[in-house]
């Protein structure tokens, strides 16, 4: 009897644990080989872009928390920088606010990369790493809670600065964490890098050349793992990144192994940046002196008539940027996170288009897995470091 040559079509997700949320993949399989992979997304679509057109600029900040929920501060940062650019007040942001923003954005990068490493290793079968990574992540979540009151949806940055100053003793806590973190990264490396099973599962898997990666729109650590030396923090500095000394890790291996090494090095560099930020931190104002945009101090609201009027106007009406359009992007942990804002001169964004890094990174999945084994699909989803909240918006 002749062997059967029919292909089989199966669903992977949207409830599959290794799809990191609600990603549905329709896989056409020939035995264990993937012939065709078709991603279906949108299960987490909440219409953030539509909702933002019906809110004032400040009311949009909590919506951005919920895009990439593993890195809320990066989303906040991208959005407030975009609004500041639209208003033309970028150079009026106080130094202290800028330094704190950089420090928290880098802690957020570590936090996001910890989840990437934890889940990537767990999907492939290395369970121990997961527990260690989440232990460190818990520290960062506690820091989040101390400064903003929330562990995940921070809503901490404001247009013009920050919502509040750092609590007492916070700098010491960050310094202790940063001192311990490089040792923790060594621990993860000790569990994985020399591990034969880990190597067999990721070396030469999910290969994409630098040229293809650029064409399909991959950014962030995944692009740098394909040998393209491009980082928005260095190439288009924002929030004072030009004053920090850090390296941009690049590896031309083009496979999952290369991306693994790049992201581990990124965590080490982030530790360095946080340390520099701590050294730069000086007392000072945390909100720009732009009365029509930034809320006045509470003291002024209760004691002066101008303070009361500004407070009332900003809360009830919001501020009105002049008509125009801008694009501002930041190097989020997963890649280029951009906000394209169009203003018609009213107090609400006329149109806000988010450029989510995960959306474009996921687009490369079919070409990275087709022709490979089904077990590699799990590794490739892990290495692309996608978050469905970011993809579906």
């Amino acid at each position: 009897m002749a062997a059967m040559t029919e292909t089989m079509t199966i669903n992977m997700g949207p409830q599959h644990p290794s799809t990191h949320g609600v990603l549905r993949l329709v896989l056409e399989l020939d035995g264990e080989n993937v012939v065709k992979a078709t991603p279906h997304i949108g299960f987490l679509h909440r219409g953030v872009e539509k909702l933002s057109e019906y809110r004032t600029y400040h009311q949009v900040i909590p919506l951005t928390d919920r895009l990439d929920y593993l890195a809320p501060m990066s989303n906040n940062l991208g959005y407030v920088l975009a609004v500041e650019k639209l208003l033309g007040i970028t150079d009026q942001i106080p130094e202290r606010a800028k330094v704190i923003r950089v420090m928290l954005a880098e802690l957020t990068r570590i936090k996001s990369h910890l989840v990437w490493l934890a889940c990537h290793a767990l999907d492939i079968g290395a369970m121990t790493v997961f527990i260690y990574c989440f232990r460190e992540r818990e520290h960062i979540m506690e820091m989040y809670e101390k400064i903003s009151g929330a562990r995940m949806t921070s809503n901490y940055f404001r247009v013009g600065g920050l919502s509040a100053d750092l609590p007492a003793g916070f700098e010491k806590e960050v310094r202790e964490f940063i001192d311990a973190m490089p040792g923790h990264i060594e621990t993860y490396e000790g569990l994985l890098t020399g591990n034969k099973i880990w190597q067999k599962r990721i070396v030469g898997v999910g290969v994409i050349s630098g040229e293809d990666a650029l064409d399909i729109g991959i950014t962030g650590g995944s692009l740098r793992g394909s040998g393209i030396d491009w980082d928005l923090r260095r190439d288009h500095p924002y929030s004072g990144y030009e004053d920090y000394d850090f390296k941009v890790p690049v590896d031309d291996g083009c496979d999952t192994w290369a991306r693994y090494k790049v992201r581990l090095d990124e965590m080490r560099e982030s530790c360095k940046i946080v340390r520099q930020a701590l050294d730069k931190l000086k007392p000072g104002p945390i909100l720009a002196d732009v009365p029509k945009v930034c809320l006045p101090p509470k003291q002024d609201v209760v004691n002066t008539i101008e303070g009361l009027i500004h407070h009332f106007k900003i809360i009830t009406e919001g501020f009105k940027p002049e008509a125009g359009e801008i694009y501002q992007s930041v190097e989020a942990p997963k890649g280029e996170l951009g906000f394209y804002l169009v203003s018609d001169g009213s107090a609400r964004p006329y149109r806000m288009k988010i450029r989510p890094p995960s959306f474009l990174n996921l687009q490369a999945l079919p070409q990275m897995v087709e022709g490979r084994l089904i077990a590699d699909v799990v590794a490739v989803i892990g290495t692309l470091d996608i978050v469905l909240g970011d993809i579906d918006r």
Partner: protein
Amino acid sequence: MTDQAAVEKLKAKFPGSVLEVKEFRGELTLTVKAEDIVAICTFCKKELGYTMLADLAGLDLSAMGVAGPRFQVVYNIYNIKAKQRLRLKAPVEERGPRIDTVSGVWGSANWLERECWDLMGISFNNHPDLRRILMPDDWVGHPLRKDYPVQGPDREPYQGRQI
């Protein structure tokens, strides 16, 4: 090459197609004719080095109170060598809004154009796979249009709130 130089080259190559050049907060926006979008994008990529399509957005101008076609497709392109951004805009008419696909120029346009079709209802000629992407397949309407109510069709506004 500065981005001004890129604009001059584009103007020289496509004299009748560049409709408007605008600068705001140091960012250049070029409005070009929709018919020539594929030729212009190919030129930008091949000759001017804009190898990345960073983003693509649909824009509904019907609530803006300006004259001209209702829709615009906005291309945010990036030159990774010169580290420069440029924004191209192509106006699209309200009746049967369509424009040629640029997915043959940049692969990343594939999903971005699907999203634009899904949420804004602008169709792309010759697109390899023009299906809805974020909304369910059987959805009726295009939510990001300005005449689409925020609470969804056939529903009362939340607690009677008028926005």
